[in-house]
């Protein structure tokens, strides 16, 4: 099935960007065995089956690119394996030095890359393929094919499946299984502690609340599915395009899409309005990238009118890889033509700048890539919840202990009374009425009776494990998330981007972060590049003071003025040189800007303006650096006005020049450069190259003019030290033979089906040599607003900020200074070595230095601030050897760590380094696909919804618009959430334990028979109704400190880092309190009513009300901020309990009928209620008063300051709060 293809005509579209990237992963693996399915952690993935072969080919790849670095052995495991696996995920983005990358950057999510890439590497075997008959949906869908229609169903449930599926999902929570088992046990007649309904009720209630929540979400999905499915598209039916509903589109049908329309399914382009078959698509719905991508219809399918088209497309089975596609098309036996990712347009994308496009549906409905990618973020578990498990185990032990005590005592009691049991009126085991003298009632022998007692005790005391806690936590997290999303301080006005909570179960982790790992480009910086400096032929042109800032307008063919959208300040000297200069320098300068204008993948787009005589020229491209360079070239008179697949038109100072694109070598992370071969108007063939300095200086002919090379190197150094991103530009004129040789090799490589990427890279490396150095450019990536302040605040909060960047060391350091990460008084430890040995030595030195510094100063205040700067190469060596421990030691001692030139996978490795060795919480923040692994590795992953697409956001737990929002997120919301959630968990344990202890004390006075005075209804309603609402309200609304205070004193964040609000000590204290309170609740009424006429129901009502009032008062005492909602919840809860008790006591057939009304008529009841409340609360109150006054923590003092500030504000409203002096 190898396609026979003619030699590429010069106008053949250049290989689409992704293909090379795709191919990079293919190495020379022909048919690897099936790779394992994607697993959540990218670094853990190995593919043993193909590892050896793969690594061999890798080595050869690596040999060519010594500067490529990646963690060979981040995880233990054989080297071959790990290098293979890291290679699969190897997505390199050298932020500082690369530009020419439409898609050279890693675009494929690390989570799913490996197997899918492998999938597209395979030779398509018939059994692995899907056959699509163009224009013949019936044939295509004939059995056994049966492809799904284009309807989508994102809903989880249907009406029929809702109940079983939802229950199945909910019972994944072990606690619910526990409660279910207990409820089931309760149905055994001998064990019936509660009535059947009552025993199921709490579980049914929590399941019900969750189910309602799920059902509502699902209903919303259902609604959006419906609108989506009923959209119409134009489909070829019987030779005419007719509107058809999306859900009815079938594989094999030909669909026509016009400009600005959304694509209904994944389809292979057949033809477009563009004569060369280009279609531009916007993939914002798919990956969030707003720039246009080019897709191509094959030349073979272009000429045939769609209704006459017939043929077979043989393509891969549906997979999730949105950047890969492997297929062939065979038009009526004319031979197979290969199709790649650039020939397919995906559902959800929009057609732009293309009048129409026609394609054939290949994947529909749930098979489309967008649907296959539609999975949620991986779920993480919060630290608090993990800790909570420890306490749950303690409680389980207590529960078993209580049950054992009851069982033991019950056994002893039965033994003592064994000879009386037959006759004592309250037991009467013997059946006297029966003729059978041995007949007994409800008696199974002493042994089983004891066992039953134990089981009944477990059922009776089951709420020791708080059933409502899980649902309460979920609900409060939803509430907390609501307030985080609504916070106006975290709204990015510029991008209209709200804060997003993607993971709903780790809100409280935000309050305990100790390490922040941040990406640089796009996270600390805007990722909006601005051309600042040019070094041309050894001359530095960075003085733009006298230059114009309005850009350079050109007049279009129709006389309309085209103005580049972004103006760039120019250097008048350089401008003059370009315009009127002569000599070599001027020639080189012109070539320099010609390179900038041509050597890229930017698409110029003309946008109408209100002024009919002027239009805006907008450069669309995937790399902001390239955009900046092209805008700069335009400002200097080299305006790119048109680009098709075959040629480029550049307006050079008003003259249009046409350059034929003969070949294009995409950027890739090994070469770290891109090049273009153009046929110039003067019939010469030139190779223009731009790339990272490290890679460019290796291919530049230094002998040509060494002084220029030296000067440029100097300029590069100075550019990067002021934080600019640098690129080196070079060129070479190709001789006829050279060109022909290249052309043959290029054709061969680009038509090869296997190892295409490798071959192409070889071709590129072959031609990109002996270059003439033209110069270098410096691009500024501005810091985002408020980054230095944010970093300062985070550092004050005791959070260590690590910056991981692909930039060069100089750039990284200078950015470090400008964002106040590095300060002048810091001692920098630089680990930057090129060999394993030197790296080891430097690290050892660093360790001893750190130790020395530490021993010098025991006083923490006098500590010398340290900064560690380490580069990717050294990291490889360190991770490779067993030096990780040492690195950790050094890194821990440093206040700041800056890692430069790191690969994406290394980022995850660094996060893991910390995660493995400390219990400190880590947070990773980034904006690009290269940060995905790090975001998923860290305890909390934050995505910046920025310029680089949505990959990071999709993988993140929280997403926001700006780095500086990290401050309110962590310091304010994180602090609050942690404090609230910590308290809520403790309180829930306390609340249920108190109740269980009250039940337990009573059991001791009932012959150990698990009778309760409290009605079973109150028992089951206790934790779900009587006391649930206030804790949720408090967990959502309470604030220990105001936003103002928390931001003013970032050190207050330390409370979370030190786990001050939830720890074993607090748990023990609150449990002791719980025992004391239960003693008070039980024994005060007991002593008062001993030897009285009191009946069980009345005393039970008193106990019920006491417990509920007490736990609510306990909560009330700990509430810090009382607003009307809190008041309503707490007092309302008590009132609701009272009403419930009254309702229960109004049912005549309940044994306790009317008890509460009788009780309320006696003075003793009220006196006891008051006494119980006071006695029970005294220890808590005393401890609280003592602790807060005599051993105050920071939060307490800040609260007091806040209070006095409020008073001050009230009396002097005009005075600012800054009057509170800091000591």
């Amino acid at each position, binding site marked *: 099935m190898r396609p026979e293809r003619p030699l590429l005509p010069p106008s053949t579209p250049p290989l689409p960007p992704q293909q090379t990237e795709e191919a990079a992963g293919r190495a020379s693996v022909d048919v690897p065995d099936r790779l394992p399915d994607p697993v959540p952690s990218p670094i853990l993935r190995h593919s043993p089956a193909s590892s050896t072969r793969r690594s061999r080919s890798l080595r050869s790849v690596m040999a060519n690119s010594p500067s490529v670095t990646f963690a060979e052995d981040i995880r233990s495991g054989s080297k071959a394996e790990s290098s293979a696996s890291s290679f699969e995920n190897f997505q390199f983005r050298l932020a500082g030095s690369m530009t020419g990358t439409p898609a050279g950057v890693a675009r494929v999510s690390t989570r799913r890359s490996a197997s899918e890439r492998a999938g597209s590497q395979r030779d398509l075997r018939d059994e692995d393929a899907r056959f699509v008959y163009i224009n013949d949906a019936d044939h295509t869908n004939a059995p056994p094919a049966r492809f799904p229609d284009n309807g989508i169903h994102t809903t989880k449930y249907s009406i029929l499946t809702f109940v079983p599926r939802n229950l199945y999902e909910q019972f994944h929570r072990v606690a619910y299984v526990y409660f279910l088992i207990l409820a089931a046990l309760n149905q055994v007649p001998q064990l019936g502690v509660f009535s059947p309904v009552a025993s199921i009720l709490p579980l049914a209630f929590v399941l019900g609340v969750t189910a309602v929540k799920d059902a509502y979400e699902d209903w919303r999905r259902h609604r959006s599915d419906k609108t989506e499915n009923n959209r119409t598209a134009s489909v070829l039916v019987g030779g005419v395009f007719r509107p058809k509903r999306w859900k009815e589109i079938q594989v094999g049908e030909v669909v026509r899409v016009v400009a600005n329309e959304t694509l209904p399914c994944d389809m292979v382009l057949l033809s477009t309005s563009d004569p060369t078959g280009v279609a531009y698509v916007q993939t914002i719905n798919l990956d969030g990238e707003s720039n246009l991508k080019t897709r191509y219809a094959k030349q073979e399918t272009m000429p045939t009118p769609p209704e006459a088209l017939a043929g077979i497309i043989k393509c891969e089975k549906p997979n999730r890889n949105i950047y890969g596609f492997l297929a062939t098309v065979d038009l009526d036996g004319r031979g197979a033509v290969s199709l790649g990712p650039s020939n397919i347009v995906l559902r959800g994308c929009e057609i732009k700048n293309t009048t129409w496009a026609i394609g054939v549906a290949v994947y529909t409905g749930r098979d489309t890539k967008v649907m296959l990618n539609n999975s949620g973020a991986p779920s993480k578990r919060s630290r608090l919840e993990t800790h909570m498990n420890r306490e749950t185990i303690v409680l389980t032990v207590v529960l078993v202990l209580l049950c054992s005590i009851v069982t033991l005592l019950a056994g002893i009691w039965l033994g003592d009374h064994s000879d009386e049991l037959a006759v004592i009126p309250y037991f009467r085991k013997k059946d006297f009425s029966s003729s059978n003298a041995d007949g007994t*009632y409800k008696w199974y022998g002493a042994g089983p009776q004891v066992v039953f007692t134990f089981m009944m005790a477990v059922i009776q005391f089951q709420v020791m494990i708080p059933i409502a806690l899980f649902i309460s936590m979920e609900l409060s997290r939803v509430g907390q998330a609501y307030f985080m999303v609504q916070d*106006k301080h975290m709204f990015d006005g510029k991008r209209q981007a709200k804060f997003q909570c993607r993971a709903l179960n780790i809100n409280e982790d935000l309050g305990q972060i100790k390490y922040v790992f941040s990406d640089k480009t796009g996270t600390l910086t805007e990722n909006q590049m601005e051309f600042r400096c040019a070094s041309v032929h050894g001359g530095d042109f960075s003085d733009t003071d006298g230059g114009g800032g309005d850009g350079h307008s050109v007049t279009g063919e129709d006389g309309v003025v085209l103005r580049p959208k972004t103006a760039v300040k120019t250097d008048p000297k350089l401008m003059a040189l370009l315009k009127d200069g002569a000599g070599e320098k001027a020639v080189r300068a012109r070539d320099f800007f010609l390179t900038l204008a041509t050597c890229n993948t930017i698409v110029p787009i003309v946008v109408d303006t209100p002024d009919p005589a002027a239009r805006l020229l907008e450069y669309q491209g995937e790399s902001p650096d390239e955009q900046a360079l092209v805008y700069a070239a335009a400002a200097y008179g080299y305006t790119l006005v048109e680009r098709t697949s075959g040629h480029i038109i550049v307006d050079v100072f008003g003259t249009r020049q046409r350059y034929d694109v003969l070949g294009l070598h995409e950027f890739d992370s090994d070469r770290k450069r891109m090049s273009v071969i153009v046929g110039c108007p003067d019939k010469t063939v030139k190779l223009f190259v731009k790339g990272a300095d490290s890679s460019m200086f290796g291919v530049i002919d230094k002998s040509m003019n060494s002084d220029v090379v030296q000067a440029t190197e100097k300029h590069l150094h100075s550019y990067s030290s002021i934080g600019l991103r640098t690129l080196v530009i070079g060129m070479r004129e190709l001789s006829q033979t050279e060109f022909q040789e290249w052309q043959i090799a290029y054709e061969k490589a680009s038509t090869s089906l296997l190892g295409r990427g490798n071959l192409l890279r070889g071709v590129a490396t072959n031609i990109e040599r002996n270059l003439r150095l033209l110069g270098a450019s410096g691009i500024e990536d501005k810091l985002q607003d408020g980054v230095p302040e944010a970093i300062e605040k985070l550092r004050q909060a005791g959070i260590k900020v690590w910056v991981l960047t692909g930039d060069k060391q100089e750039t990284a350091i200078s950015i470090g200074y400008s964002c106040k990460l590095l300060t002048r008084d810091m001692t920098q430890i630089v680990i930057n070595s090129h060999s394993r040995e030197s790296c080891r030595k430097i690290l050892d030195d660093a360790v001893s230095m750190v130790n020395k510094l530490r021993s010098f100063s025991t006083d923490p205040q006098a500590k010398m601030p340290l900064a560690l700067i380490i580069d990717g190469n050294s990291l490889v060596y360190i991770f490779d050897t067993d030096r990780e421990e040492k690195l950790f030691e050094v890194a821990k001692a440093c206040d700041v760590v800056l890692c430069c030139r790191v690969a994406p996978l290394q980022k995850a490795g660094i996060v893991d380094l910390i995660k493995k060795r400390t219990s400190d919480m880590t947070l990773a923040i980034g904006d690009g696909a290269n940060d995905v692994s790090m975001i998923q590795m860290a305890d909390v992953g934050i995505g910046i919804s920025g310029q680089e697409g949505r990959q990071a956001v999709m993988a993140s737990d929280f997403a926001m618009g700006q780095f500086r929002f990290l401050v309110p997120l962590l310091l304010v919301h994180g602090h609050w959430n942690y404090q609230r959630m910590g308290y809520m968990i403790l309180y829930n344990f306390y609340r249920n334990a108190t109740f269980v202890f009250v039940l337990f004390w009573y059991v001791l006075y009932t012959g150990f028979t698990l*009778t309760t005075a409290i009605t079973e209804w109150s028992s089951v309603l206790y934790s779900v109704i009587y006391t649930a609402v206030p804790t949720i309200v408090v967990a959502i609304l309470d604030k220990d400190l105001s936003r103002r205070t928390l931001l003013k004193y970032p050190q207050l964040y330390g409370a979370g880092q030190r786990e001050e609000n939830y720890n074993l000590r607090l748990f023990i204290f609150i449990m002791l309190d719980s025992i004391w309170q239960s003693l008070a609740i039980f024994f005060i009424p007991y002593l008062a009513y001993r030897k009285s006429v009191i009946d069980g129901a009345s005393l039970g009502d008193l106990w019920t009300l006491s417990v509920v009032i007490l736990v609510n008062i306990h909560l009330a005492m700990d509430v810090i901020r009382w607003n009307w909602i809190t008041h309503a919840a707490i007092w309302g809860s008590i009132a609701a309990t009272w009403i419930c008790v009254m309702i229960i006591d109004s049912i005549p057939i309940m044994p306790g009928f009317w008890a509460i009304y009788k009780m309320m008529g006696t003075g003793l009841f009220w006196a006891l209620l008051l006494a119980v409340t006071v006695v029970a609360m005294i220890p808590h109150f005393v401890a609280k008063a003592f602790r807060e006054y005599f051993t105050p923590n920071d939060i307490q003092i800040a609260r007091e300051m806040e209070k006095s500030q409020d008073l001050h504000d009230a009396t002097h409203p005009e005075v600012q709060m800054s009057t509170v002096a800091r000591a």
Partner: protein
Amino acid sequence: MDPFEVEGDSRKSNKPKYSKFTQQELPACKPLLTPGIVVSAFSLIGILFVPIGLASLSASQEIVELIDRYDTSCVPMTDKVGFIQNSKTDKTCTRTLTVPKQMKSPIYVYYQIGDFYQNHRRYVKSRSDKQLRYKEAAGLTKNCEPEGNSADGAPIIPCGLIAWSLFNDTYTISVNKKAIEVNKKGIAWQSDKNNKFGSDVYPSNFQKGNIIGGAKLNESIPLSEQEDLIVWMRTAALPTFRKLYGRIEADIMANDQLTVVIQNNYNTYSFGGSKVLVLSTTSWIGGKNNFIGVAYLTIGGLCLFLAVGFIVLYMFKPRALGDPSYLSWNRDILD
């Protein structure tokens, strides 16, 4: 001002709507445990509790209680169980008591049974509230085993162990040899009589089995009028309990001689339970019980002590509230 806020109307704005609620800025009160509040809270409790304690203690002291345990002396020393189980024996027993203080009417007559687990799980469940209430529900005796149905299968009304074990000692009281009426009307809760026990439900098959648990019921009187049963059916919370037997609606003077003729029918001997006759006046705090008064006095005293203690602590270790120099990071610098 944010330009987008101005522009916001023309394009769809995502900007969260600002309100005091969404920004978590609702007006709120932030109480602090200042020394003043702590001391006044304790003082207030102390000042409130001591008088209540004194009042209830005096109320309890006012109450006159006559207690007489008769179960041991009203049976022969040997074979107590045999004696009590034999329906033929004469179980009359006369007790004489001297009233220490004047008892004002109404004087309540209780019987107190000790170590009788009326709250035993087996026991409390052995009843049918529906049967007690509704005539139609006579057959609902599922929970009443072993006293659910008679030998011939007819439902026992009222069924269950509780009713079966109905107390059947009787007391005849005379003051200074003069018989005095013990009013047995109105000893049960009015609510029970009206709504819990049916006025059309009559006892049947009751105490007809091989073993008699206690009192028999007059089958011509509806359950709602069987006040002894109603009192008995309201099962006690604790293993030693009192139940109202009747009311004496006359004052008894100090040093009056009380003669109580007891029909000692009820068998507590098989499980070693005690039986006590109690005559008691009443007050707002119920029966005689010093505990609540003592408890209040103790709590009040403790709170006053705590108030003083805190005053002393505050004086000896004063701390300025809200002084930033106490913040941990500032303290480090000072040290």
